[in-house]
């Protein structure tokens, strides 16, 4: 099953159906997981084999939903392009939506390019209802669902996939995919610009898989959109606490939410604090500043002189500043090491407290420099060569 690139799919489809497919392929984001867009495979034709192409009018649509991928067949007729399509819902043979609940089917307008996309969204809603119905097989999971539904924070953006009962063991599994209501809007832009792909919407999704109806095997997993993941410090941001045994979602999900919110707060705070720090150093050291990161405020380089001895100080501010201490790197401008680099010494522990404000930190840093420099000078003369 080869996935066709959108352009190839569009070139093979019958011209009258092209606009409908275009909006699906280009703009098609349905469901919570909007980082994965809809894919088209298995383009086939319903016309006789002698009909000259392009005349494909039926295909398989892959829709991400609740961590699964639904594969629905969509059947048009190239000879009657104004007619609405028919659907085969793959392995969900029992899913039969009520046509009256699908307004875009009842009032199908082939001239509206978005009609198919809207119809797919409506079908997905019905599918969600159907899956929630299936949860009734397990009272425990139904309780989880109902309790989440009541909470306005989570109830509206939930996708449920109630898996097939394993006919041998009678096991019932379900997956809840929840969109976490965390506000990422204040994350500084600079943190998000590094991603190469179109970041799309910033979203955090929590997927909780119940492997059995009694909720004894629960596997939670956090999904972040790539830019957020990067902004929060890479894969380590995905660590979440394990699901407590005997716990329930209505307690666990807010916990995860809070954790994530805290992280975001730290990051935002860190940014502001760094800015403050740099500003303070600028005002204290004035002409001694060589360069600094004016976007992310993560680095600062100073050129200082003490008793005719000039040296550089590089300050690296970590992501979780002020919780984490900045790293000071002293560098001599005269002496080289055996490997050809400038002689430098890194200082990670020096008098520091996260409670100081920027000014205080600058003053203390200055004092520390004065105390440390004789040591450094001796070291440079001893170990480096001119």
């Amino acid at each position, binding site marked *: 099953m080869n996935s066709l690139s959108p352009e190839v799919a569009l070139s093979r489809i019958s011209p009258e159906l092209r606009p409908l497919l275009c909006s699906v392929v280009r703009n098609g984001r349905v469901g919570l997981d909007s980082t994965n867009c809809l894919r088209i495979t298995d383009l*086939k034709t*319903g016309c006789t084999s002698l009909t000259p192409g392009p005349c494909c009018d039926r295909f398989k649509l892959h829709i991400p939903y609740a961590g699964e991928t639904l594969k629905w067949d969509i*059947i048009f*007729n*190239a000879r009657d392009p104004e007619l609405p399509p028919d659907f085969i819902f793959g392995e969900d043979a029992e899913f039969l939506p009520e*046509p009256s609940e699908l307004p875009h089917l009842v009032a199908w307008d082939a001239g509206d390019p978005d009609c198919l996309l809207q119809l797919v969204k409506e079908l997905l809603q019905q599918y969600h209802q159907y899956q929630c119905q299936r949860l009734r097989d397990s009272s425990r999971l139904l309780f989880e669902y109902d309790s989440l539904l009541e909470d306005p924070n989570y109830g509206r953006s939930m996708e449920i996939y109630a898996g097939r009962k394993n006919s041998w063991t009678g096991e019932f599994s379900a997956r809840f995919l929840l969109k976490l209501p965390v506000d990422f809007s204040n994350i500084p832009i600079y943190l998000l610009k590094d991603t190469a792909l179109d970041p799309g919407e910033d979203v955090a999704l929590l997927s909780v898989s119940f492997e059995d109806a009694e909720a004894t095997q629960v596997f939670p997993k956090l999904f972040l959109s790539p830019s957020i993941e990067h902004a929060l410090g890479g894969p380590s941001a995905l660590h979440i606490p394990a699901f407590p045994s005997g716990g329930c979602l209505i307690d666990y999900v807010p916990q995860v939410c809070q954790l994530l919110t805290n992280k975001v707060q730290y990051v935002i705070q860190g940014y502001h604090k760094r800015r403050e720090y740099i500003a303070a150093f600028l005002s204290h050291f004035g002409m001694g500043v060589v360069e600094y990161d004016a976007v992310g405020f993560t680095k600062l380089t100073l050129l200082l002189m003490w008793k005719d001895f000039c040296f550089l100080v590089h300050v690296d501010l970590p992501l979780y500043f002020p919780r984490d201490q900045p790293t000071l790197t002293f560098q001599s401008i005269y002496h080289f090491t055996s490997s050809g680099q400038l002689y430098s010494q890194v200082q990670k522990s020096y008098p520091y407290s996260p409670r100081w404000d920027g000014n205080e930190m600058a003053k203390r840093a200055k004092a520390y420099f004065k105390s440390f420099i004789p040591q450094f000078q001796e070291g440079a003369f001893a170990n480096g060569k001119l």
Partner: protein
Amino acid sequence: MAASISGYTFSSVCYHSANSNSDHEGFLLGEVRQEETLSISDSQISSSEFLHIVEVHNHEPCAQLFSFYDYAGKVNEENLNRILKDRRKNVIGWYRFRRNTQQQMSFREQVIHKQLTNILGIPDLVFLLFSFISTANSSTHALEYVLFRPNRRYNQRISLSIPNLGNTSQQEYKVSSVPNTSKNYASVIKEHGAEFFDKDGVIKDIRAIFQVYSALQDKVQAVCAEVDQSERVKEKIQEEVKKLKEEISLRKRITAAEERRHQESLNTENHSLQDDSALSDSSSPPSLTRVLLQSPPLEVSLDWPPNSTALPLYPAAPAPPPAPPSAILLPRPQAVGSPGHPSPGLGLGNGDGSSSDSLNRQAIGQEDQLEEEEEEEDEDEDSSEYENLVSERLQSPSLTDTAVSLGRPAALWPDGDTHSSGGSS
């Protein structure tokens, strides 16, 4: 549940479908019947099995899609009636043809099927799905068909059999129970049917064969009567023979007694002549032998030269059978269906060639000679069939055998020679 569709209906549906440039749909007309099989075995009293048979006789294609339903899949009953007209009561299902799709009922098909079930009032409405798969380079095309009964929860797919579509080299050409509902066919058969069928609708040849059969049965009945009669006659004759034997032995005893008395009287006269006792002893045997010798002539006298002495004793015996010859002449079909002609040139008693030998072997006592004489006499008869009857009626065991063999036309060979299996035993 079993389903069958005649070959021409199936090919007609395929033709309509394959020639359409889009999906195609239509209705299936036919009938559903229920067969009950009652099986009785030693282990259980009886068990009955019910089998639903669905037969597709015809189909009604729809000219275009969405002809009886709207975008939401709601069936419009007016349009449905317009398409089906008066054939609505014959509907047993509907079909759909779509190319390059899965063999699974689609969303709209399920919606429509539910409604059709309710509107047409058929609880077990079937759905025939055709899918046409072509390979990418159009070198191979496959037409697949599956018959669904979606109103059931399990066993939704049933196999559709098409009689005589398959390998017929190892099995016979089956006559299908699916009737031909074509009007043209019915009118032609009606017009030309009189040559083959009589007024009751039975094929004429069957009646002719039945007539032959009943004629044969009549003949067998007649022969049975004759056999019965001849058996009685034979019994009577045997009784008389017995009586005569007793009379003979009585007469012998009387004669012997008289002789003895006579001898005794002679002996008392020749009392002085005692040296002749040996002679007298020896003479008695001669007298005895003379007596003995006399007995065969007595027996011989009992032989019946057919013309003279036989007549008073056996008045009815050698007379030709009272029935006219044609009644006795059993038709001997030379070939199946042709009226029998008696085959000429049959030898002595060889109408049932082996039977005449058996007649010889089975004869009892005096009857041997009787038979031989009879057979020699019968040579002069004109028809060899007569000799069969006349000679056979006088012999008890073989008669029954031959009578039985006559009643079995299946044993007759077309070349005219009759070999009765009963007679050869």
